[in-house]
């Protein structure tokens, strides 16, 4: 028997085995009779030693022990212990009462002599250099269980788990495997190249350095051979594996009855293949088509990105872009066609140190995801807000904004149903920059305002255009803002409709909101957005006009 198995057996007996180790131990016990016998004998020995230790403790404290044999002798003899008196009394009770008594009696029958085992966990081996075997490298609107209790740690040792209540986190294993975990989920870290998914969903992208990366689940074991794949584990431990790219080897943990009805051993899954493995039941495995839309992926780069250069907006000063969302590029949708993420095409938009990570706008909650239309504005795709329960929005990964800004939004408003406000875009930190449409069903007119608010003290400069804004027509709503230059202009389709005085700097490093107010609970926008372009500076008038014309040309918007 190898050292690893021996170690697993001792960890199991000591009650400190992790779920992943336990699965590995079961794999061995199933096929290795020697290991099975060793486990049982060692367990039996452990119990005997524990009993002896307890006896020794009793001798020291001279604690009276229950004399079970006196109960066995029974008839006519006097039981002197409390338990004995209890039993004698109960022996004349009705059977129903006896049963009730037994529940009480055997629920804690050894409470008087219970062995208090002071088990200790063997310290996990430390890895020199870096801390832990994996660490969180990106968090997207997530809530981690340990943070509810004030424990914040982004790196993990073998045997530790991450419990994600909601949202998404990206974890990178030391060997390079990058795993996107979708809450609610529980993942245990087994080593620098393996993990145990107890429940929930994940996708994994495996670079060459991490080939052989393993994900264990309650009903299967996946071994990567250079690929990208998704795994989901339901509450019953049933597992679905979907291969997006490359090849995965899958080993099923089947019961005897299942193995008899299926092809046991390992299977190779390649591109677009999937398999559903049940933990129990007659039919253990079912081959399915891979369905990437069932998973949230953080590594998605739309394969069609920039495929048709004619569809890409001609922009100036791209190096100053903070946001550039284009509905035809980098949109990840779920199985209902709703938008999970929208990739930020602006170069250098990320404020993180890991360049490969994409900046995007996200909605991890399925019920709040906006829709998507291939033929949106001017024949180009658009993200549709308000099409479901009118509470859809997206939030960006943290963006570093500067003091000034130029923002242009290609949008179309839905007809107003009630009086209210709809925020297209909310930027900034203390000083809020809000592009909104005020909706007034009584007059049937629409006004557009670009506010900046600063609290405290509260100040607000709201620009309102005097002309109503049409629904059913796309338009380019834009603003230029600079504190130093004293610019604060609102324009629609290239024409300045209002101007005012800037209040304060927009500089911030945080998530920005598209489609509702910054608190994310009101001012939901209803309409479509095809493109958002935002610069970290106030563009010169000439360049601003150039970008506006480029957008109007692309979306076939005529000058009014």
């Amino acid at each position: 028997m190898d050292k690893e198995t021996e170690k697993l057996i001792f960890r199991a007996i000591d009650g400190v085995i992790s779920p992943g180790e336990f699965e590995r131990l079961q794999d061995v016990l199933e096929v290795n009779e020697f290991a099975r016998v060793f486990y049982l004998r060692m367990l039996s020995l452990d119990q005997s030693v524990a009993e002896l230790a307890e006896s020794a403790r009793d001798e020291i404290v001279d604690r009276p022990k229950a004399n079970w044999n006196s109960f066995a002798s029974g008839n006519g003899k006097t039981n002197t212990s409390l338990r004995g008196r209890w039993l004698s009394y109960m022996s004349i009770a009705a059977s129903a009462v006896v049963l009730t008594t037994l529940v009480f009696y055997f629920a804690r029958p050894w409470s008087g002599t219970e062995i208090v085992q002071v088990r200790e966990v063997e310290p996990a081996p430390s890895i020199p250099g870096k801390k832990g075997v994996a660490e969180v490298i990106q968090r997207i609107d997530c809530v981690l269980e340990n943070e509810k209790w004030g424990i914040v740690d982004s790196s993990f040792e073998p045997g530790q788990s991450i419990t994600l209540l909601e949202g998404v986190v990206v974890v990178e294993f030391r060997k390079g495997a990058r795993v996107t975990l979708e809450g609610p989920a529980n993942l245990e870290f087994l080593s620098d190249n393996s993990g145990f998914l107890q429940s929930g969903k994940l996708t994994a992208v495996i670079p060459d350095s991490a080939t052989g990366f393993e994900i264990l689940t309650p009903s299967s074991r996946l071994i990567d051979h250079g690929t990208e794949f998704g795994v989901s584990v339901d509450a019953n431990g049933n597992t679905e594996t979907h291969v997006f790219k490359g090849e995965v080897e899958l080993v099923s943990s089947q019961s005897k009855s299942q193995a008899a009805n299926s092809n046991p051993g390992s299977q190779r899954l390649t591109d677009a293949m999937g398999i559903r493995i049940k933990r129990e039941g007659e039919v253990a495995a079912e081959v399915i088509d891979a369905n990437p839309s069932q998973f949230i992926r953080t590594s998605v780069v739309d394969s069609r990105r920039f495929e048709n250069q004619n569809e890409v907006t001609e922009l100036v000063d791209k190096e100053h872009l903070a946001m550039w969302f284009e509905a035809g590029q980098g949109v990840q949708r779920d199985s209902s066609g709703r938008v999970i993420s929208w990739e930020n095409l602006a170069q250098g938009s990320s404020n993180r140190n890991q360049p490969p990570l994409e900046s995007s706008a996200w909605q991890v909650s399925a019920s709040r995801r906006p829709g998507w239309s291939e033929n949106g504005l001017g024949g180009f795709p658009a993200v549709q807000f308000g099409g479901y329960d009118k509470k859809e929005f997206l939030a960006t990964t943290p963006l570093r904004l500067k003091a000034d800004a130029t923002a242009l939004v290609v949008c179309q408003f839905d007809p107003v149903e009630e009086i209210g406000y709809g925020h297209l875009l909310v930027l900034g930190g203390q000083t809020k920059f809000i592009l909104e449409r005020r909706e007034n069903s009584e007059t049937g007119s629409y006004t557009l305002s670009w506010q900046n608010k600063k609290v405290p003290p509260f100040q607000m400069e709201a620009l309102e255009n005097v002309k109503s804004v049409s629904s059913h027509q796309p338009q380019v709503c834009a603003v230029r803002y600079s504190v130093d230059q004293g610019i604060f202009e609102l324009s629609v389709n290239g024409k300045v409709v209002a101007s005012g005085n800037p209040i304060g700097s927009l500089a911030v490093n945080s998530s920005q909101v598209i489609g509702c107010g910054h608190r994310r609970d009101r001012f939901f926008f209803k309409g479509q957005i095809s493109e958002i372009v935002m610069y970290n500076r106030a563009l010169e008038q000439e360049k601003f006009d150039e970008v506006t014309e480029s957008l109007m040309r692309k979306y076939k918007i005529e000058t009014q």
Partner: protein
Amino acid sequence: MGKSNSQDDRYQRFVGLLALNDQAIRRFIRSLLPSTQGVDDVVQETALECWRKFSDFELGDADHPDQTQGSDEFIRWACVIARFKVMSCQRDWARDRLVFREHIIEQFAEDAFEQIENRDLERMALEDCLSQLVVESRRLLLSVYRPGDSVKRIARESGEKSRRLYRKMNGLRKQLLNCVERRLAEES
């Protein structure tokens, strides 16, 4: 022992058999579960089920009127019930705790029952083997079961690293197991 028709006599006999064999039944159940968690629950369920079906046992036991024979029969009978109870409980627990696969439990059940039959001999052999260990080794081995004592405490006192002591402790466990098995082989 002859059958008694009265309920209280039956109950006395049942409790007597259970009291004689509770440790063995508990050990059997523990060997089918991955940890001590849930052992109490299964013991309780098993005891109740044994009582409900005690009349079946009594009918089957009619050919073995002496108590010793009845006791061994009782263990076998109770362990069969315990095995089913473990299976049933594990199915309920599968969602939130570690459970053995069913066919592993089946394999364990066969082996574990053989061990129960040797438990008294094993206990004597263990006491003998433990007495042969030097004091420090015996203390280290028993430290995990004694409140107030621990591997960490021994590490502090001796200046040795905890990890090294854990390895040493596992080595002692193997040494002890070999000694016990040698003694049992000599006895047989």
